[in-house]
């Protein structure tokens, strides 16, 4: 059992960031399937907003990953 409060705080932060990434990813998967369905139905107008929003979601996920990476590095190195 980890009792170091600094490490515990780090784990809590990482768990929070991970949960947020999971939520963003679920939205992104839904967005991808909806855009694909729309494209296959012959509609082109959803492709650009879909790609822009997907890019924003990916940027948010990447930022959260960098956050996790940094916290992980800081906490473990003390």
């Amino acid at each position, binding site marked *: 059992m*980890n009792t*170091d409060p600094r*490490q515990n705080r*780090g*784990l809590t932060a*990482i*768990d929070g*960031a*991970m949960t947020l*990434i*999971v939520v*963003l*990813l679920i939205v*992104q*998967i839904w*967005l*991808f399937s909806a*855009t*694909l*369905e729309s*494209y*296959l*139905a*012959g*509609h*082109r107008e959803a*492709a*650009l907003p*879909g*790609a822009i929003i*997907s*890019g924003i*979601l*990916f940027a948010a*996920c*990447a*930022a*959260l*990953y*960098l*956050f*996790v*990476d*940094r916290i*992980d*590095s*800081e*906490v*473990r*190195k003390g």
Partner: protein
Amino acid sequence: MSWFRRPSSTPLWQDEFSVFTADERYVNRRQFTKFLTLTSLAMFAGNLWILVRSWFRRPAFYPKQAVAKLNELPVGGVKLFSYPTAADRCILVRTEAQGYVAYSQKCTHLSCAVYYSQARNRLECPCHQGFFSIVDGSVLQGPPRRPLPRVVLEQKNGLLIATRMEQEGA
């Protein structure tokens, strides 16, 4: 505050394969987060692919093509033909004495070939029980979410002529 981890003298492999049990939790979480982020990148790439495909999609060319002679089919009769290319199978149904309809034969769910059920007067996909209306190709039941593309027909000189395909929303 920096977004990136500080440079460290510890080799990367020591980070990834720590000898300390407590550190493993971090490694596992970090690797899982990396996996999720890569999945997010794949979704983004998919959306970009759709965008590029939609930009470069050429408008379809529909030739005028005779698909059957009038009165060639009995009422309730069916004829298969290809339109607009040889790879696009379509189904022509004579629903009444003066009524002809034609649709793409590819189910909009997973592209199985649909067939005409005269008893139920509808188009049926045998793979996953998707049913389509014979009147307008709309989905009556089952997993398909889009109607069947309809072949627009004209009658001329005793022939049924396919002039174009009508997609949903087109």
